[in-house]
């Protein structure tokens, strides 16, 4: 059984839930089994937000992720809160613009300044898409082009300019964590 259990966390307003939803949607479009479970407490802008995504090729048991294969931490408090829930050989993806990746983690740590990259592209709010690009490229859980297609449909309905930036953000994220990813 091939199953990837993912925790995505950050502060409210960073688009954490959207990141998870697009990831889940991409998995669904690729014909995989998937669950998306948001934290639904008193999440507000500036507070904390997290969600859990499970992608599998078989029927999924628990949508609740106790032990994660992948942790995407978009800020420091989220990293501290969830790093203990990452499996020893799990992949840690850290937004180094807002969090200090733990020293001494030999394998599976990807540290990229998502927010800084997004700022350079023109919108700090696209940091979630940079992270999504990085997550897809470093874990192969879904294909980049599936996500890109979803963003395209999305942009058509809302803001075209923001859609452009999001596409660039996605690509920048994938390139930033795996040199050579752009050739795939």
């Amino acid at each position: 059984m091939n199953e990837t259990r993912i925790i995505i966390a950050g502060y409210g307003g960073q688009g954490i839930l959207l990141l998870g939803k697009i990831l889940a949607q991409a998995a669904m479009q690729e014909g995989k089994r998937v669950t998306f479970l948001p934290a639904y407490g008193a999440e507000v802008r500036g507070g904390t937000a997290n969600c859990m995504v499970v992608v599998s090729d078989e029927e999924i048991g628990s949508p609740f992720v106790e032990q994660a294969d992948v942790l995407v931490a978009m800020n420091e408090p989220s990293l501290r809160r969830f790093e203990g829930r990452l499996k020893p050989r799990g992949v840690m993806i850290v937004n180094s613009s807002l969090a200090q990746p733990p020293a001494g983690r030999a394998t599976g740590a990807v540290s990229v300044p998502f927010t800084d990259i997004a700022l350079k592209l023109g919108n700090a709010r696209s940091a979630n898409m940079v992270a999504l690009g990085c997550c897809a490229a470093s874990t192969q859980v879904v294909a980049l082009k599936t996500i890109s297609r979803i963003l395209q449909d999305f942009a058509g309905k809302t803001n075209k300019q923001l859609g452009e930036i999001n596409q660039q953000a996605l690509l920048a994220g994938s390139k930033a964590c795996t040199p050579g990813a752009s050739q795939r």
Partner: protein
Amino acid sequence: MSGNDAIAEGAIRAGCRFYAGYPITPQNELTAYMAEHMPESGGVAIQAESELAAINMVFGAAAAGARAMTSSSSPGISLKQEGISYLAGAELPGVIVNMMRGGPGLGNIAPSQSDYFQATRGGGHGDYRCLVLAPASVEEAFGQMFEAFDRADRYRNPVIILGDGMLGQMMEPLSVSPGRIKSYAKPWALTGCKGRAPNIIRSLYLKDGALEDVNLRLQKKYALMRRTEQRWESACLDDARVVVVAYGGMFRIVKGAVRKLREAGKKIGLIRPISLWPFPDRAFEPLLKKRLSYLAVEMSYGQMIEDVRLALCTRQPIEFLGRAGGGIPTEEAIIKKIKTML
């Protein structure tokens, strides 16, 4: 689609044309979805001024012959109990959705299964029963709405969908299939009595012996439901030494744990009650001859386990694992517990 959205969409497709609700986490999306989409199908969705108003509006709509529904979460469902008892007493169909959260009191908004007693033992006053269905996935929640409205009309009885906050909030892929709807003649409905004798809908019977007759009629109906409406899912019972019993969202976590144990060669079986009332006693009948150990796992401190005990005629050893108030038994804890029983 989220569980809340899927239940709302399923209800509309199952012919629900009247919805009244009042906001409470974690079922708010259900009310919001109804407000947005019910008008598209020519139905009515109302955000009532209170839970009491909502359930009594359902009473009115059901009396007029409409497929009617309300939804809430635990504390709100407590407020609706009087109305549910009246629905049962007046023999009106109606669907009530409870996306359970932590209790008692206002509790919290975390997923829970602490309202099992309330749903299966009445909750309101009087000798009555509701058919109770517990979905374990978004897809199943969608499909069960067709069944819920069908059974409500067939038996002229309230039907409860018992979910939890996790099921309501989680999203899963859902293939929306058009379900079959059987329409029931409702000669008893209050549709305007021009040209016929007036219909009377009531639950008050003061004449000597009248209420007893009503009660006996209800009991006959409940006996029929016991015979025909038991539903469950089971797996790996043939070689099982330990049988784990869980329902709804809890079953999902149990299933993951049991899968891991079976991969490691452990002989564990599974029973998932889908109807909570009537409880699927028949799932246990073929097992009564064997000497097995049972484990009930719940997001409560032990409610469904009482029905498992009754189904086993209290003759077999049964253990319990449960947490509530925001705690959820983890896969790891379940595996650990089962290992102590092998």
